[in-house]
């Protein structure tokens, strides 16, 4: 698989569609799981991912290489997912129960009971905390990298992760 810099070179040489397809192929899986843990339902994840890739395509001409390609792409996808989650919260009075029901009826879920409880606990978090928790706990991303993607200070991210972690730990006390 080509390096990010090689993909950008290809794009700058005029092979824009080919370069974009390489980006999709390189990052689709990683981005899917990143979004899936935030949105939980496959259908929502699919919508978010498609919209994000369209934004990446339209934004590529203005990509200035000031940040890494990976960071730039992650920022677009994360913002799209956050916008979706915020909108979903506004649309429904009790979004938590919807996400829990989606999880109960999810034919693509094959995890254990404690994994299901963990996802339910995550779905109760505010969108930003949910994102921070997912990036740190599941993806084991460094705070510095998260700071660039989320445009938030490392200190604020640490505090946010700590809050989220404590809330989830308390939710899962029954599973000791």
């Amino acid at each position, binding site marked *: 698989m080509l390096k990010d810099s090689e993909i950008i070179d290809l794009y700058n040489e005029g092979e824009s569609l080919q370069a974009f397809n390489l980006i999709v192929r390189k990052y689709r899986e990683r981005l899917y*799981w990143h979004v899936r843990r935030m949105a939980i339902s496959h259908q929502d994840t699919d919508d978010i991912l*498609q919209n994000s890739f369209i934004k990446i*395509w339209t934004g590529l001409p203005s990509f200035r290489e000031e940040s890494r390609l990976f960071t730039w792409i992650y920022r677009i996808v994360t913002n799209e997912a956050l916008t979706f989650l915020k909108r979903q919260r506004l649309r429904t009075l009790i979004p938590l129960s919807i996400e829990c029901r989606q999880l109960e009826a999810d034919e*693509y879920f094959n995890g*254990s009971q*404690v994994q299901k409880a963990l996802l339910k606990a995550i779905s109760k978090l505010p969108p930003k905390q949910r994102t921070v928790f997912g990036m740190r706990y599941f993806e084991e991303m460094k705070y510095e990298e998260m700071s660039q993607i989320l445009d938030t200070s490392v200190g604020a991210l640490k505090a946010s992760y700590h809050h989220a*972690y404590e809330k989830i*730990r308390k939710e899962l006390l029954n599973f*000791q």
Partner: protein
Amino acid sequence: MSDILQQRQQELKRNPFNPPQDYFTSLEEKVQARIQTGNRNTIAGFLKPALFMACCFGMIFLLGYGAMKLTRQHESGTEQGLSMYEYDLVMMVMDESIEESSEDTSSINSEDEIIDYIMMQGTSSLYAVLYDSDNN
């Protein structure tokens, strides 16, 4: 206090989902298809709000114009202290008296001139009508 997120992290961090079969291949195709139709959507997406805005401005203009016109009509009828009914009567009688008159009336333009003219002519029917409407 015990920490399940630490103790069972291996299990908890394992991916609990399966994506639908061939999803990632179909995702690439779906994105490609949307890019192909993207240009058409962009034009429509640009035009729709512009048309909506134009319609809104048109409606506001028409409402404003209508309200202004109604107010002007009302004001022009009452600025001499006459009601709309009285104003109509004055105009009707005026027409009659002007027709009766053999003088050149083309120079009469403003309402003040019209009233002066009637006074000079001493059209009795006008005074009769105004007197009646005042009593009513």
